[in-house]
């Protein structure tokens, strides 16, 4: 039982980490990024390549991969997504357009990775030393990844709530029109938030690659879990991300332990639908008037 809960919490922490970037991209920039998981896997591949090719510690690799994630995302937003933002008459129209555009992007990123690495599964061994915590044996890399996820999450939370720019980001998330009225440059803030999300997903990709096997086509499942966590938690809400991620992870590991490992996805979906039927705006979402 404790083992199941422990595994669930670790898994949930990972889901929360994965979803944090998406909640920024979707909550602030209103880009429903279906290629999110592909970017995560791309960061995993980058980390793999740095580790096996250059013997670079993934934790140091973060210092390279995360800025690249930020830079690529900002270019992507400026070049590909800004035209859609301009074209869209309403927020809903932008959501549909961005959804389709990122859906295409998903295949492009996946296609590039397939061309470069083929369809095989990859993994590398980094700090897979067993350690004992609360009487449970865990791999050190998982523990480090979990710890860093907490640090990143906390840093992001503080940056959003304690800084001026963070306040601007949250203002755009709540009401872009009103944000414009108080002299916030909505386009720049959206681009920055999207890129910050890109940096977060790059970090998540590196951390995940330390203990999971991945392939060029495993992005979809990450996208799906991240979307579920974001929507369940309430779009744009970091605390919601954490709670929904943990709920998803816990339910998954409990079902895998006590019912059947083949039913984890079913339980994810059941939880997702259950939450939305009771609270359509998500656990921490604002109800619409």
């Amino acid at each position, binding site marked *: 039982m404790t083992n199941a809960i422990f595994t669930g919490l670790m898994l949930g922490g990972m889901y929360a980490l994965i979803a944090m970037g998406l909640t920024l991209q979707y909550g602030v920039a209103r880009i429903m990024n279906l290629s999110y998981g592909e970017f995560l896997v791309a960061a995993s591949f980058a980390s793999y390549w740095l580790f096996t090719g250059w013997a670079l510690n993934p934790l140091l690799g973060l210092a390279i991969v995360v800025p690249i994630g930020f830079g690529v995302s900002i270019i992507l937003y400026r070049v590909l997504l800004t035209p859609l933002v301009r074209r869209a008459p309403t927020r809903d129209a932008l959501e549909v357009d961005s959804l389709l555009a990122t*859906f295409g992007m998903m295949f*492009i990123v996946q296609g590039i990775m397939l061309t470069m690495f083929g369809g095989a599964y990859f993994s590398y061994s980094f700090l897979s030393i067993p350690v004992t915590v609360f009487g449970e044996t865990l791999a050190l890399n998982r523990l480090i990844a979990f710890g860093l996820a907490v640090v990143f999450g906390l840093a992001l939370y503080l940056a959003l709530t304690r800084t001026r720019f963070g306040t601007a980001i949250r203002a755009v998330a709540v009401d872009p029109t009103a944000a414009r009225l108080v002299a916030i440059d909505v386009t720049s803030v959206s681009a920055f938030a999207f890129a910050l999300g890109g940096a977060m997903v790059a970090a998540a990709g590196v951390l995940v690659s330390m203990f999971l096997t991945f392939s060029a086509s495993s992005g979809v499942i990450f996208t799906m879990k991240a979307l579920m966590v974001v929507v369940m938690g309430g779009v744009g809400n970091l605390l919601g991300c954490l709670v929904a991620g943990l709920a998803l992870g816990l339910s998954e590991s409990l079902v895998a332990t006590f019912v059947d490992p083949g039913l984890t996805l*079913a339980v994810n979906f059941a939880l997702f639908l259950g939450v939305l039927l009771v609270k359509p705006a998500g656990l921490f979402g604002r109800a619409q008037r």
Partner: protein
Amino acid sequence: MSPTQIAALAAGGAGLVVLALLPFYIDAYYLSLSISLLQFTVLATAWGLFSGPTRYVSLATTAFFGVGAYTVAVLGELLAWPLVLLIATAIGALMALIVGISTLRLSGLHFVIFTFGLAELVRQLVIWYEVNKTRVLGRYVFVDITQSDIYWQLLALAVAVFVIGWLIARSRLGFALRIIGEDETVAKHCGINVTLAKVTLFTISAVFITLVGAIMAPRWTYIEPSIAFNPTISFQVVIMALLGGAHRLWGPAVGSIPLTLLFEFLSTRFPATSTLIIGIVFLLIVYALPSGVVGLWERVSRRKPEPPVAPQVQA
């Protein structure tokens, strides 16, 4: 009926006869290509039936297609073929009802997320069931269905999807869906049961997709969940319907023909980079043709001067 309508009907009938006789005159390669064309035409048109007017982007095509194919894999040898198709229809409809009732009350975006994962969910459930209950994973399909049979069945299904789509567009249901697509709140206040209308159409659309999966199943001799629930189908169907323009009944068909040919070409010539190229084509369509070929054609033809007295709409 006006003379032009009679002429159109006659031309359509003649075209249909030609299409029906085609398997007698073409070789296996072209027959196989024609099957692919028909398959995607029906899939894209059926997708457009629901997603066109409601603007709910469904990524669940694979889920229904796979359920149809897998039904044949399980029951194909046990029951008569029409009965197998009937059961596939029933299963597809039931699944669509469950999915529709539980998700179509949600916003369009939540619906997308759900359908995005639906194929994966159904695949996992099928694997779970097969591993735990029947203890077989992967089945051989031994049914007495030739390629020509598949072709004719798909042709009949294509006719059916167009006729039903045409009837829906002329019905109160079709009108209701157009209003829903324009403004859901207004639709509710016009007395439209929005959920019922959406679920009904989603189910009709899903039944066609399930049937395509069932009819196509004998094409493979061996089926396992990862073959039946191949996620690229969902994606191909969306891109075809978008290229053509999903807001008109015949729009998706306009998109399905060139893209089927393109995909066929890519998968034989550039198998390694086909995913990448498909992605680029998709982006081009989203950016350059937001309302599809049909939408573009309508915009161009609308530039012509209109008659001075606007006609009363009686549709």
